[in-house]
């Protein structure tokens, strides 16, 4: 038991506050960065085309046989969905292969009181109740929580419901349906699964809007670099510059 706890502890990333100042640290390895931007592109495509699948654009004129407007919208959606899913598998693999920060968003230590204390500190920082932000090598605890709850879980839901709907299109005797048909057993009829898929899109949209705002704001206001970190991988600490 004790060994198991030790193993778990070493696996789980307690968002480490930096004690010893170092000017810059290599945080996000190339696979994480590539995934981040590929994932971001897919999500934008999926949200736009997904929205249009539920609320199609005005009809196109002409013969049906010369047009494929809605077909293309759906094709882009399914293509981006497949890329997103493969990229996500790759990101999961990297959580095991990569550095200490690579599994941070997968395992927030929700059972640790100190961690919740730090989440609370971040909340107070965003509410202007805390004068000094803490410095983190990886994500700050609040970001870690949001990335897990508002991004990772809805993304998983989107992927599973998305592939279940895709399997219906492929037919109930397809391999897709054998792999994902169980989703309907869990979540109900096809129409309800559409509704859930759409709601989870909105959760991801909300996350993305907040995420981009906070990334830019923190880049300006906090004691560390952010946007450039997700591009170059290096985290700079501004007050250690001199």
């Amino acid at each position: 038991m004790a060994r198991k706890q030790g193993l778990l502890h070493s696996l789980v990333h307690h968002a480490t506050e930096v004690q010893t100042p170092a000017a810059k640290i290599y945080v996000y390895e190339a696979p994480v960065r590539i995934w981040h931007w590929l994932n971001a592109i897919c999500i934008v495509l999926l949200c736009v085309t997904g929205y249009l699948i539920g609320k199609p654009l005005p009809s196109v004129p002409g013969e049906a046989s010369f047009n494929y407007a809605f077909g293309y919208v759906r094709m882009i959606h399914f293509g981006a969905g497949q890329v997103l899913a493969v990229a996500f598998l790759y990101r999961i693999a990297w959580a095991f292969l990569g550095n200490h920060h690579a599994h941070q968003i997968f395992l927030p230590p929700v059972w640790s009181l100190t961690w919740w204390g730090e989440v609370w500190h971040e909340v107070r920082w965003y509410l202007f109740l805390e004068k000094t932000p803490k410095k983190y090598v990886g994500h700050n605890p609040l970001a870690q929580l949001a990335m897990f709850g508002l991004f990772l879980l809805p993304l998983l839901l989107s992927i599973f419901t998305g592939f279940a709907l895709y399997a219906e299109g492929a037919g109930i005797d397809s391999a897709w349906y054998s792999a994902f048909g169980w989703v309907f057993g869990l979540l109900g009829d096809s129409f309800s699964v559409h509704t859930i898929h759409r709601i989870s899109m909105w959760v991801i949209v909300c996350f993305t809007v907040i995420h981009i705002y906070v990334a830019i704001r923190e880049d300006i206001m906090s004691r560390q670099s952010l946007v450039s970190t997700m591009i170059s991988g290096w985290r700079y600490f501004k007050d250690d510059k001199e």
Partner: protein
Amino acid sequence: MSSPETFYDVFRQQGISRRSFNKFCALTAASLGLSPAFAPKIAHAMETRRRTPVIWLNGLECTCCSESFIRSGHPLVSDVVLSMLSLDYSHVLMAAAGHQAEAALEETRRDHAGEYILAVEGNPPLNEDGMFCIVGGRPFIDQLQEMAAGAKAIVAWGSCASNGCVQAARPNPTQATPIHKVIKGKPIIKVPGCPPIAEVMTGVLTYMLTFDRLPPLDRLGRPTMFYGQRIHDKCYRRPHFDAGQFAEAWDDENSRKGYCLYKMGCRGPTTYNACSTVRWNDGVSFPIQSGHGCIGCSEENFWDNGPFYDRLADVHTPLGVESNADKMGLGALGVIGAGIAAHAAASALQRARASATNPKSGSGE
């Protein structure tokens, strides 16, 4: 009633000619999606197999399943299938009434225990000890459980029996409950629809009676030969869907041109049924062909997934406010947008104040 005769004997007694009988076998093979080679097999089974009694119970329902069934498009098929059923007990069709009828039911249960097929139209309401549906002086749930215990297999007719239908819609005051949730340990075959297509009903029964086994079922227990595809997969308006040509209003030009009814709320993409292939009234038409979108009547929760004329279903939030996915999403986004604007303004203000008091530190401390 004890019936040693075969199905074929019964048909002959009913005055059905050999020629008509052979035609029926060929038609049935075709409607079940079997190869023509199966027609003689069906004939052989009908000639040699002892007639299986079918008991038809009616619970909480509107009788649309019975009405559909007796209007089976092909009169020959309905004649034959009707003569297959032992109509000792069927609220709609039986000659007997009152105690006499209940006694006949009891007799079949006793004499054919383990042999009969139980066809159930409607479902039992469980609230108030089942008092919302009384049959023969007792709650329907009692009759159902008693008859199910001796049945070889159960056919759940229509959406009521298969998934609850309208009477199980939110908030379901009578607690109407589909058959598979109250009867365990018996093979149940679901034939959903409000009502199901007549040819589908007769087809399913014929399959069970001739082959003495259940047809292949999907993961929900529906026969795949009729419920294996969505309306949308075989809809003749599908090319307009892919082209992006939709009716935008019931009376617009696109609607007249026969464009896809998706934007008018058509549930074809999420509904498994045979309407777009078998069609209704002897293959005359089906809702989409008549210019109205599919309402998804054979799907679970179809009533709660309304409104029928919108692609997005109402979502019932815990606060009791009805909304839909887009209203909720855009609402949340609005709140977040306002929050971000306020937060950004406050951040800028704080920064300005900080650099005014302490011009040396520029990084928001």
